[in-house]
């Protein structure tokens, strides 16, 4: 008679990866529901052709056929991954085929800082009211944020949360954050905006109008986060539930003027975003 079969589960198949800013996204085909999965174990190694499946290379355990390798910073980094299926009985599959993926390089690395608030490090702890002081936002920033680069301190001058009109705790209204910075001369080449978030509202992160010196550049759409960044400020903590996201885009050179420039983020849609850092970067000179 048969009692209990402890045959190993099937390995995950179809492992795919996408390099993103500061991270790599992995997806695979889940095993069928007939196998009760405890978790998928994700193994990773940097700058290698393959990864050994051992405790030292275990990057994460997840129940989803999906993982985000976060916190890779602005430098392009190359990683190799394999996935092992662990079933409800604790039985492990053989490893999946490996896949190698490279993350994208950020303008915070390739460019030269022109005006930066905070550090691009996966943490918002250096910003005002962080990590959980949102209840004091309206009294601290009744007119939004107006930050003068070189004079103001991020710890007091730039709120960690940027509320939107969906936020009752911030008056259910629109909120403008302005970054003022001087330029000796107008840039010859386009510059880049880097806007890193440690988290955002999960279902209604909304969008914001981006203006430079009063000219509307674009509407920035934000990715849904985990709705946890209003209470915690460090996405690099192991097991952090925060879901960082990144916006980097070019800003045409002709928007800028010698003297003071104003970059404005006008949150007129949705709920809050939680900042990691924001900045403007000049591009490196083109090589002939």
């Amino acid at each position, binding site marked *: 008679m048969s009692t209990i079969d402890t045959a190993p589960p099937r390995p995950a198949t179809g492992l795919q990866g996408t390099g993103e800013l500061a991270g790599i996204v992995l997806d695979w085909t889940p095993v069928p529901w007939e196998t009760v999965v405890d978790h998928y174990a994700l193994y990773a190694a940097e700058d290698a052709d393959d990864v050994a499946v051992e405790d030292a290379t275990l990057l994460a355990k997840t129940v989803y056929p999906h993982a985000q390798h976060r916190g890779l910073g602005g430098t392009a980094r190359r990683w190799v991954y394999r996935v092992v299926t662990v079933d409800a009985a604790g039985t492990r599959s053989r490893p999946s085929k490996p896949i190698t993926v490279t993350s994208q390089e950020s303008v915070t690395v390739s460019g030269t800082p022109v005006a930066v608030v905070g550090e691009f490090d996966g943490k918002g702890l250096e910003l005002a009211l962080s990590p959980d002081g949102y209840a004091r936002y309206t009294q601290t920033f009744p007119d939004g944020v107006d930050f003068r680069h070189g004079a103001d301190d991020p710890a007091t001058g730039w709120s960690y949360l940027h509320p939107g009109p969906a936020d009752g705790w911030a008056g259910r209204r629109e909120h403008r954050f302005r970054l003022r910075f001087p330029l000796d001369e107008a840039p010859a080449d386009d510059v880049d905006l880097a806007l890193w978030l440690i988290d955002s509202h*999960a279902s209604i992160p909304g969008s914001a109008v981006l203006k430079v010196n009063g000219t509307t550049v674009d509407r920035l759409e934000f990715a849904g986060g985990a709705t946890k960044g209003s209470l915690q400020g460090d996405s690099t903590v192991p097991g952090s539930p925060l879901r960082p996201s990144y916006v980097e885009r070019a800003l045409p050179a002709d928007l800028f003027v010698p003297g003071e420039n104003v970059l404005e983020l006008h949150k007129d849609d949705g709920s809050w975003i939680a900042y990691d850092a924001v900045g403007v970067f000049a591009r490196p000179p083109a090589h002939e």
Partner: protein
Amino acid sequence: MAPTDTPPPTFDRRTFLRLSGVSSAALALGVAASDADAAATPGGPVPDGVFGLGIASGDPGPGSVVLWTRLAPEPLAADGHGGMPLRPVPVRWEVSPDERFRVVARRGTAIASPELAHAVHPLVEGLEPGREYFYRFRVGREVSPVGRTKTLPAAGASTSSFSFATASCQAWYHGHFSAYRHLANEELDAVFFLGDYIYEYGIGESNLWRAGASVAPEHGAEIETLEQFRLRYALFKTDPHLQALHATAPWMVTWDDHEVQNNYGADGSRYGISTEHFPHLRAVAYRAFYENLPLSLSTMPDGPDSTVFRRFDVGSLARFNVLDTRQFRDAPPVDREDQYDERRSMLGRQQERWLYEGMSGSPATWNVAANGVTVSAITEDRTDQWDGYPAARARLIEAMRTTSNPVVLTGDIHRHVASELKADFADPDSPTVGVELICTSVASGGDGAPTDGYTPDWVQHPYVKLYDGRRGYVHCRMTPDELTSRFRIVPWIEADADAPVRTTARFVTPAGAPGLEGQE
């Protein structure tokens, strides 16, 4: 018979066929193994102390009950397997009408397999209805403590009384389960647990208010994998008063949101998990729920789906409909127009139909819905409750109007509330069609206080007769003439488990005259 009709309570052919492949053997043997099965299970040493998570019984019928234990000599082993070797182990059980087991009414064997974290759910049949029994397990030479359980009265039998309690929301890290210490001493035919048996949150300095407790780092992250869910159940079950209450009376358990994730509904997460991915979380969460509670095999999940709504008949006295207010609900409303859409459902169409037919057509004197979230109208923005599903609530109330003595039992809000259910909540003069008895939390929210910032929202309504924000449980005694509900509280839970218990309010609901008559 009870449980009655859909879904079937027993391990029948249909259930067996629904299960497939490797798992079916493990599941079947965890419920009822033959002597041949037991003989074919390889032996081997088992560590001492395998009953570290206690014993339990649940889902009783007139001649049956489900027994439960999960072998775990090291309940907090980080891999969720409780320190058990990853191989099947035979578990013998005995049921006796006598606490000293001088006569054994039934005995059998179940196979504890690693696929179910070494949980067994033997279904004991052939018992006498309406009778107290005692049970114990044996693994190798180790014998478990003795548990007490009770079968339900025979179908249609005249039943003079039925005593039960409701409990919910046991955030272990917020305090001691003092309420259970007292509840175990009450007169009890059954316990109805109304959701939030575990919480998914990471446990750390900011929320560990249980004096004297500490946790290992693996408890610090929000749980996601099956091993983490298993470990979380084990952590909560380390409370001795919880184990003692499980061993005192049969439990009928349903879930609310925190058995999976805060405020989820169907495939929808409030925390950014896509609808494509969320079923994977549900699958492991539902699996761990089954593994760790004394549930019928009919509740065993099939992938991300599980049927936990079920029915228990207590002779001719009462019918209990245990509901699932999470798995089938429509998404939160996007605006007021959506909120009032006639098509919105809290239970899903199939469960609604099953409930209404089972209520209106019931021969029982009392007809109870054991449910996760508040039915009474409180405020329009409480959209996680039935306030978010007003059309579905109107259908429920309409069904109650043709039901004998409807009663709703609720948890979720961490407050004692007693409310009269109105035919039209907007018109306080409209008829009262039933009562809602909402039990406070066992631990969630810490010590609590009689009143708090939410009190005005509730007591503004003339149909709300009680509000108390301290910890405790509700004890009820039903007879053919009346339902007596006592709202019990303990004044503190964070410092220790020594708080005394007292009754903060007592109501009588006469049969045939729905309402809450306060008595003190």
